[in-house]
């Protein structure tokens, strides 16, 4: 597996010494049986495997990925990290994630290019700014950081922003989280894979799970093309395919899979040193170190499994980006892509126990899952190792839909296409 990455090693290899770089993780051949089989090798699944091995000494772990590492939503999101949520359950989990992100490059010995450049949520009405103030207070009370910016402070923090009072949608202020920002998203998959692999976790790519062998109310084994693999515990962490995998295990989920698009512009010189979100119309933009503007918006508005999306959502998002930053009007889009977001009936994730005894679910992250990656891995790993829900994810239990204890940040009701 090779040693740690360092500036010295980079220089050493640069001189052509020490041979070729070793693969970051091993290609495993599956064993007959594992203590834990994780279905889904995205950031969440790989983080779960890493923390199972590191925090709980469970090394007999297999991660099965249908595609390739970093090829799903982990490599398709707009790379934003933040914890600016109002509801306690939502905020506490993301705040824990943000704390973990802050030390993760060192811990995993992998440069995740974590850049806490600040995340600005624009308010377009007094009412919205009032709601942001409430949210900022909730964030401060849980020990996070938050600030409310008036128009003058906003002008200083985000100089290119269109603050014209005669704009189509005039801006009245903003919520700022300075610890929010961006990072290199696919490096998260690679870093967790490398760290987990070094701790003895097996990772198999291009290996979709085709079914479960059930015995009583338990899963005895997962079936794959290379063969049947026995499992004491199964974790399902498959984002957009959650309903399909749950169906194999015999239950339905309260969510729908809806595409979300993102796109990048041609690279330009540094113009934006902060991530900005048009909250009322949902369109967010940040600039990468390479100079491209990364943009995303709301969902396509109806379910689908094509990771593409249509022209309507691009126009909708671009209109708001140009409204915020008129200098972008003549920039060209360079690439566009979509991801399949599994969005629950209250818009919040579903984690923990399922109707099948030894199947732990991590689903329903919609298009909000990337920022939570380390906290999800940490808490799901503890949930599996200890056999009871980690306190931070207990509110996100699947049975909350039947009991009525919903966590609806947006207040949009049981309509995933509106979240």
């Amino acid at each position, binding site marked *: 597996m090779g040693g740690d990455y360092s500036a010295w090693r980079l220089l050493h290899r640069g001189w052509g010494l020490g041979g070729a770089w070793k693969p970051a993780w091993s290609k495993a051949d599956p064993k007959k049986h594992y203590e834990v089989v994780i279905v889904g090798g995205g950031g969440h699944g790989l983080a779960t495997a890493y923390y199972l091995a590191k925090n709980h000494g469970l090394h007999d772990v297999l991660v099965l990925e249908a595609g390739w590492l970093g090829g799903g939503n982990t490599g398709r999101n707009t790379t934003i990290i933040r914890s600016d949520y109002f509801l306690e359950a939502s905020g506490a989990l993301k705040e824990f994630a943000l704390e973990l992100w802050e030390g993760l490059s060192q811990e995993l010995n992998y440069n995740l290019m974590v850049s806490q450049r600040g995340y600005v949520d624009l308010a377009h009405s007094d009412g919205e700014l009032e709601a942001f103030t409430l949210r900022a207070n909730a964030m401060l009370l849980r020990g996070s950081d938050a600030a409310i910016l008036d128009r003058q402070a906003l002008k200083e923090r985000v100089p290119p922003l269109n603050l014209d009072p005669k704009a189509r949608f005039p801006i009245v202020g903003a919520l700022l989280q300075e610890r929010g920002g961006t990072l290199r998203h696919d490096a998260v998959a690679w870093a967790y894979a490398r760290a987990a692999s070094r701790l003895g976790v097996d990772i198999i790519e291009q290996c979709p799970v085709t079914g479960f062998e059930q015995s009583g109310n338990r899963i005895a084994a997962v079936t794959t093309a290379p063969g049947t693999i026995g499992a004491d515990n199964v974790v399902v962490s498959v984002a957009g395919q959650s309903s399909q995998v749950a169906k194999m295990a015999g239950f*339905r989920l*309260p969510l729908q899979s809806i595409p979300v698009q993102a796109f990048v512009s041609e690279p330009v010189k540094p113009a934006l040193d902060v991530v900005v979100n048009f909250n009322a119309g949902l369109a967010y933009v940040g600039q990468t170190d390479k100079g491209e503007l990364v943009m995303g918006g709301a969902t396509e508005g*109806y*379910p689908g499994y*094509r990771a593409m999306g249509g022209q309507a959502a691009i126009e909708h998002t671009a209109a708001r980006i140009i409204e915020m930053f008129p200098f972008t009007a003549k920039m060209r889009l360079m690439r566009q892509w979509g991801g399949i977001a599994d969005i629950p009936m209250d818009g919040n994730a579903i984690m923990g126990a399922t109707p099948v005894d030894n199947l732990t679910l991590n689903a329903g992250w919609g298009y909000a899952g990337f920022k939570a990656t380390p906290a999800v891995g940490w808490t799901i790993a503890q949930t599996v190792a200890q056999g009871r829900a980690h306190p931070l994810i207990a509110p996100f239990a699947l049975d909350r*839909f039947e009991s009525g204890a919903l966590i609806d940040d947006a207040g949009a009701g049981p309509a995933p*296409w509106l979240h």
Partner: protein
Amino acid sequence: MIHIPCPWCGPRDETEFTYGGEAGDVMPALDGQSDQVAWHAFVHLSENPSGPVSEFWYHGGGCGRWLLVRRDTASYEILEVRDAVEAARGPKDDVER
């Protein structure tokens, strides 16, 4: 961009329509006899298939009618479109009208 052939207006862009949810489950009876489990299944649980599914679409930018659309969520092909009210009434009522 998908195009939905509205039975009243002809083929139109998706931007004229609003998605209105899966049309799979039938609403429990409002007679006070339906239990929480039935309502939970109706309100929350979803088939969410990767393939053909029946769903409601509202043609707000056109005739203002609710449509029952059979659509493939993997290929995005529109398989069948009917007026939702007529579909609910059934063929017998269609004849009477």
